[in-house]
């Protein structure tokens, strides 16, 4: 399923400050959007997509926002643009954050992501959307995040 959001979804909406006391992604998963969209954490399934407008993840630097969505096993977040701290947090944890304008997508459209070819297929609408994903994001995703890469290989591994 696809979860469609508008512009400027801030991290206070993703993990509100006063619930924001967990470290484990599995526990954080339960508070994701708990006030903004209470059904979200109950209905969201593994490999669902988030599709958003501009400036997704703006506001507070809180890492809980990324950990909560990772804990829910979201397959990827597509947004017209991301706020920079949120994007870095995704990189570090290997959660796919892809800048793209997907046009009209409905929540039940069947989407298939081909990272190798950098294409998103909308099977329901029979559309093929080319994606521009930085190599670093793909590498981070494959290796479980920049944290894992740095642990094994240090900074050399991410230098261009």
């Amino acid at each position, binding site marked *: 399923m696809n979860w469609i959001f508008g512009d*400027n979804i*801030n991290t*206070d*909406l993703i993990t*509100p*400050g*006063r619930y*924001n*006391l967990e*470290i484990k992604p599995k526990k954080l998963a339960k508070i994701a959007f708990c*006030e*903004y969209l209470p059904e979200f954490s109950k209905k969201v399934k593994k490999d669902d997509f988030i599709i958003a407008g*501009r*400036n997704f993840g*703006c*506001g*507070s*630097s*809180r*890492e*809980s926002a*990324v*950990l909560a969505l990772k804990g829910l096993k979201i397959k990827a977040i597509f947004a017209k*643009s991301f*706020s*920079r*701290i*949120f994007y*870095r*947090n995704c990189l*570090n*944890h290997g959660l796919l954050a892809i800048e793209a304008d997907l046009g009209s997508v409905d929540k039940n459209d069947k989407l298939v992501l081909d990272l190798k070819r950098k294409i998103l297929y909308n099977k329901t609408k029979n559309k093929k959307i080319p994606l521009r994903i930085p190599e670093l994001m793909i590498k981070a995703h494959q290796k479980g*995040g*920049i*944290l*894992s890469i*740095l*642990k094994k290989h*240090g*900074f050399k591994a*991410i*230098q*261009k």
Partner: protein
Amino acid sequence: MAQTITEKIFSLHSLKKVFAGDFVIANLDWIFAHDSSTLWVLEPFKKLGRKVARPSKTIIFFDHVFPAPRVEIANFQLKIQEFAKREKIRIIKEGVCHQVLVEKFVRPGELVVGGDSHTPTIGALGALAIGLGSSDIAIAMAFGKQYFLVPDSIKVEVTGKFKRGTFPKDLALVLAQKIGPEGANYKVIEWTGETISRMSVSERMTLTNMSAEMGAKTSICPPDKMVENFLKKHNRSFKFDKRQLISDKNAKYCLSLTLDVSKIPPLIAKPHEIDKVVEVKKLEKEKIPVDQVFIGSCTNGRIEDLEIAFKILSKARKIKTKLIIVPASHRVYLEAIKRRYIQFFIKIGAIIFPPGCGPCLGRHGGVLGDGEVCISTSNRNFPGRMGSPKALIFLASPATAAASAVKGFITDPRRFL
């Protein structure tokens, strides 16, 4: 090729000449986090399996939810204390991280990373201070360096004199209204012009702080005489090649703006977005009743802010709302005591919290209930930011906040000045 001050500072810290768009691994001068963001530093740090690379340059501040209001939070703080002891790093408990870093630690030209989105505040000293998430702080702690894309810069030239009743907060709101919450995403806001050169470091901090609300990677005021005097007063020497800390004449900007402050009236951001900016005078007509006024935070919790609040409140000598005042640091607090502001604030019924973030993030005292209206001098009016998602947060200058506390509804401060 000509460089911006940002490109110069990145060049100095990555030991090669770099420009906007370059990917760099840069050495860091200061690394910090706070009692909230450190929570998520611990796991990734453990994962990296290293020791803190530069313990004397790494600081954890207890400012967000300190002293702890709940057992879970107290236990988290104990855990952070254990970590700090093990890694031989300092914990500082004397106010908001950005404020204390400006008062005591950072020098112009330094590269600072902080586990807090308002880290750009420190750019008022002419340092490059970038807010990061906790995993990034873990990386910075473990390696003493960090990866960056050198950002484009937006030049904001400010001219004119502030009119009666308007302040740097109003100027920041004008820019927010102009470029929106994403207008500076991935970019640096560089403040220049005659008006900036007349502004104190404290006033500049309001501008660099609010830049975060426009998505800025950071914000900087190139250092000058004002910064030099500030550092002298705060017992820090000022030694650097000034040519290295000024943008070259032909440096490239992705956007250049000029703002004339003499045309700005007192402004206020309505719930729930930073760019929903209107004139206070217009809103005054609606007689919106206010339940709580908060004067403080990394945006407006400095002595100059308390001074203007004092000036307005001392004309009326009574208030009609809850009024919470939080000095940004121990230094500010002591100065406010010395000037007898604190005694006066208490006498008229204000509540003084210990230095720190106070009610700004809705996790400590001053939490808002359903439908409550708050005027805050802080920087975020998101739903639920200060408590109930049904509360309404308006953002304004300390003058507008104080005037509204006196009248009990949103009030133009010019009535009192």
